Structure formats: C-alpha cells, structure tokens
C-alpha cells in the first residue's frame, strides 16, 4: 500500500492522543544493523510499536534480530508497507539517508542522529518542505504516544497514557517533564522532541497546531532553550490561535552569552534570545511560565484545574 494512502486512512480513524503516531504506525529503521540502531529498534518494538524491518545498504536480504534488512528505503517501504522511518545513520551520511526517505515518500521521518552539519540540513529542509514527508529532528529523542507507539530513544517506562501533549527541543529535559506528569498521574497524549539543532524539520508551531486540533489533548507543555526565536514565534502563535492552556519552561537562564551550551542551537547571539526575554514574551502571550524545570508538573495540574 502506498504510504500516502495509508496516512490518509490513519487520519480517518481516531485514536486516543494520536498526533503523528499511534498503534497502527509501521516503523522501520535506517541504520538498523548498527549497535544503536539495533538496540533502539528492539526497544521500540518491545514497547509495542509495529516494527517491520530496516535498511542498511549492502546488507539487504538477510534477517537481523528477527526482522528483514533491505538495501534501500524504497524497497523496504514497498515490501513492508512501513509509514515511519527512524534514522540512526552517522552524521556524515545522515542527510543522504533523510533524502532517500523523502524520495520514497515516507510520511514521517524521525532523525535521531546528533551532529549533522548545518549546511546539510539547510538543503534537506528545503527539500522536505517541497515533499510529501514530515521530518522530526534531527538531534532529537524522537516521539512517543504512550501505550501505543514509541519511535526514538526515550525510556518508555516513564510514560503514561494521558491528555497532556509535550513538545521540546531537549531530550532529557523532556523526560524530566514526562516523569513529573506520570508521578502526578496526569500522563501524556503524545511527546514530540523536535531537536536541539538550529535547523530542524518540524518546529514548535507545527506541533502546536496538531495538539490544538487533537480532541484527546487538553493542555501542552512546551520546553525551549536559549538561542533563536522559535519559542517567541510559538508564543505569538499561541496567543492568536491556541484553544488549550500551555505551560512552558526555557532552559539556559544561567547560561553565559556567546557560549554554545551543548546543542548547536543553544547559543545566545543577539539580545532577544536569552531565557529572560523569552520568558517575558511567553508571559505577555498568556502562557503559564515555569521558572524552574521542577515545577512543570505542578503548573500543568494548576492549569488543568482552571
């Protein structure tokens, strides 16, 4: 079945908290036979994701850990009906792997790889914008719809099905937010890591739109960082369009100017991209701001009660 047709069918059927992925999603991994690719593919499968196989050029035709390996993405999609790709290819070859998925019209491409050259992503982004695919990442933990489907490297067991969406530029900070929601038995509808690079396939607003339209999401946590204007752009969009409460934290209030804080995107360059100025804009736009990352769960509980 063509992936596009499959996606349309999926959209027609509703599941709980189903933005982007759900129990019908069929996942394959590019870079499947590598150590990380194998480990996280099997982890996703153990979580309950329908994992159908993988791609490693030159190793096509064999079975690896019980699943078929193909030489090309097109062949994998054709033979398995997969509609989501998880990319574990090392940085020098990652742009090529994403482009191969775009060419095969894979509806959802999730690039986990950290350290892809920015100029590669500039070209890839332009190609993705004119394609039938959606790219999440790169340099991201992936995404998960608790209880249904996990695509990425996040620990599955800390999640719990619920009605709060999570969007974040950071991996482990997302786990922190998720953990707080689970401890309070609030749970999550879908959690999307959009990645810490300056050029990414999907931004905050793209995901906010999906949560806004999702009848199974009641509130959203948005976790941002210093650097760039993605959070302030999102804040303005939220003010004008969002029908659901949003709780937000921006990491890096204590970061010095001009130093890249791990993520390629997390660097204060102008004056408007500090945590303080982002907090200010978020508050002006009516967003519930958590100054401490330990307060996210509590703030969500508060906005849900209102």
């Amino acid at each position, binding site marked *: 079945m063509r992936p596009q047709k499959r996606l349309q069918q999926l959209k027609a059927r509703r599941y709980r908290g189903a933005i982007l992925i759900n129990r019908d999603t069929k996942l394959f991994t590019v870079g499947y036979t590598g150590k*990380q690719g194998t480990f996280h593919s099997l982890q996703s499968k153990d979580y309950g994701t329908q994992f159908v196989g993988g791609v490693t050029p030159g190793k096509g035709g064999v079975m690896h850990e019980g699943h078929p390996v193909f030489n090309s993405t097109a062949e994998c999609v054709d033979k398995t009906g997969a509609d989501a790709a998880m990319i574990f290819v090392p*940085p*020098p070859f990652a742009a090529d792997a994403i482009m191969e998925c775009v060419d095969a019209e894979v509806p959802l491409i999730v690039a986990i790889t*950290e*350290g*892809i*050259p*920015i*100029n*590669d*992503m500039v*070209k890839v*982004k*332009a*190609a993705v914008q004119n394609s039938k695919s959606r790219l999440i990442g790169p340099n991201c*933990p992936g995404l998960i719809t608790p209880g249904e489907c996990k695509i990425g*490297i*996040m*620990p599955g067991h*800390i999640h719990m099905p619920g009605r709060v969406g999570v969007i974040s*530029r*950071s*991996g*482990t*900070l*997302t*786990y*922190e937010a998720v*953990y707080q929601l689970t401890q309070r038995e609030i749970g999550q509808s879908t959690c999307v890591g959009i990645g*810490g690079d*300056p*050029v990414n396939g999907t931004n905050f607003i793209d995901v906010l739109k999906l949560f806004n339209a999702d009848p199974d999401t009641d509130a959203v946590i948005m*976790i941002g*960082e210093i650097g*760039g*204007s*993605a959070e302030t*752009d999102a804040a303005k969009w939220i003010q004008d369009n969002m029908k659901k409460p949003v709780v937000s*934290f921006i*990491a*890096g*209030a*204590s*970061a*010095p100017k*001009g*130093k*890249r*804080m*791990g*993520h*390629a*995107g*997390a660097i204060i360059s*102008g*004056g408007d991209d500090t945590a303080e100025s982002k907090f200010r804009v978020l508050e002006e736009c009516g967003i519930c701001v958590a*100054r*401490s*990352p*330990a307060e996210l769960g509590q703030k969500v509980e508060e906005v849900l009660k209102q």
Partner: protein
Amino acid sequence: MNVHEYQAKELMREFGISVLGGQVATTADEAMKAAEALGGSVWVVKAQIHAGGRGKGGGVKIAKSLDEVKAHAESILGMNLITHQTGPEGKEVGKVFVEQGCDIDHEYYVGIVLDRNTSKITFMASSEGGVEIEKVAEETPEKIIKASVDPSVGFSPYIGRKLAYAIGLKGDSVKKAVKFFEGLYNMYIAKDCSIAEINPLVSTKDGDIIALDAKINFDDNALMRHPEIEALRDVTEESSQELDAAKYGLSYISLDGNIGCLVNGAGLAMGTMDIITLKGGSPANFLDVGGSANKEAVEKAFSIILEDKNVKAIMVNIFGGIMKCDIIAEGVVAAAKSLELKVPLVVRLEGTNVAIGKKILNDSGLKITAADGLDDAATKAVAAAEGKEV
C-alpha cells in the same frame, strides 16, 4: 571553531575575495621584515587573538615607517589585550598580522549567517561599517539589508547587486562587490562556515572593494570533512579543560560559581544550572556527559570538575535514556575513590537502570547524599556548597 584574522584572509584569497597583502609575525624583527617585503609606505600592525574589539583595546596600530612597525609590534606582542569579548582577564598576544595600508573611501558591513527563521543562508549588509553591527541593528534596523539564498540554486548575481545597490555602491564598485559576495558565499558553503563576517568591508579611492577585517567561524559538526580547517585550530585560544572534555565526548563549559554539575543532555544540564541559581546557589560549570559516555568518561568528567578549585559541592543529575544509570553510578564510585573526593556529593538518578545504579552507590560505602527529584537535589547541593550538613 574560530580562526585568526590572518588565517581567515588566507582562506578568502583562495576564493578570489580581495584582501590586502599581509604577513603574520611572532617577533618584532619578523614584523619589520614582513612590512619591508610587502612594500608601500603605510602598514597596519594587528594583534591576532580570537576576539573582536581589538582596535579599541590598543591591539591595532598604524605605522608610517619600518621603525614604527617594529615599535608597534614590540608593544603589541606579549601584551595582555582586553576587549569587550575577552572578558576582564584579557588575552595574551602571541602573533601580529602586518598588513598593507589602503586609501579608504567608505566603510561597509557584510556578513553571512544562517537565518534560523527561514532555515536559509542569509546575507546581511549595511552602509554602516566599522562599528558594532549589533548596535546598528538595534538603533537603525532599516540600515541592515538582508538577502537569503535559495539552497537549491545557490548564489545568484542578483543577490549581490541587490545588496550592493542597497548599501549605496555605484558603477564598477557594484561589479566588484558582486564578485566579492559570490566568493564569500562560495567559501561559506565549501568550508562549512557558521559565520563569515567582514567588518569593515571598504571601498577605496580607486573603487576597489576590499575586506579590512574578517571573522570566520566554522560549524563544529562539519569539521570531520575539513581536516584543512581543523589544522588551523589554535589551542592556546581555547580552554584546555573544554578541549580535554571534548576528547571524551563531554561538553564542558567553565562558569564562575561553586557547585560542580554533572548532567546528561544539554537541556537538562542547562535546567540544572538554572534551578541551582533559583535556589540561591551558583553553578561552577555546564557539563553534558552525552548519551554514550562510559565509566572512563564519567571519571574524566569528575576530574575536570574538581580541577576547578572553586567547587564546594558536586551535583550529579542523570535522567537515563540512552545513558544508563548503572554506568553513571560505576563512574561516580570509581572517580570518588581514585580522586579522593573531599567535597560533598549530591546524586539524583532516574530513568533507565535506576535501581541498579542506586544499589551500586549504596554498596560503595561512599558518603553520597541521595536526592529525590530535581528540586530536592538542587536544594541539597546549594546547602552543601554553603557548608551545611545535608
């Protein structure tokens, strides 16, 4: 990665971008010989450090004779140059760049960066050069002209003309500027730059377009395919601890505070610094151990943190995903034993293999303060750094 002005200009020359003749020197005699070889009657002696604002700090001087070149080089070499970008401690100057003088008609600005809003490589140009461009952007934003490049087409001459006319160039200078901009873009792409900034870009009385200064940064993620750029790295310009950390896959940045932080993930590492600050403490560093650290890397992280003599307490905050808690725990125990840890240690573990990790810490016999959650960990770390019992 950052390079010196003289290295940037050598690279620019390869791409047909017009720069003045110049030579680098490490002694005053060498500087004088360089000036002699370059010829002419005016030279500029420029301190080579990785920071802007050198002129204001006394690191750039004009010489009208060879003796003056020598005298300037003597005063600049070895000086501790303080600019708004070096911090109050300044930077020692080890090299000077001796460059030919030129007859400046007007100073402009041109830079290439990634515009994160559009995800496109974008030119910025201004008729106001030779000053801080951030100031121009703030006070007279209309004087900054932007033009982005379609990644599937690359540089097109109209982009150059658009910029050149907008900043007020005329006649032959426009053609020269277009060629200059094209060369700069070609270099930006070919060498995977993250910033290529020419401030000032000057037009001369003869109508030439020349780069007087150059600030080129390179995308660290792309250095794997540019050994020729990696070879330009000046390790004396970088923190030895940060370089040392990078060898182990650790991302480390030294800060002014007294609570050492060891965290996995950049976002959580920043979040940890933030919550320490909110609790009234002060982080001594940013340290992300990454997703694939082993026991040795964790040990290394500890030794780097402890090299900082300001550290009065250490807070370990791990949320295991890719990173497993037991690996961290083993590293913590090994480091605490081998380094004879004397400062209080607060550990918060959560996520993958957390039970095994906690058992390793408990069985180690070390004095470790276990914390329950992020808030508790930060509270305890701040109290410990203040010398309180936790």
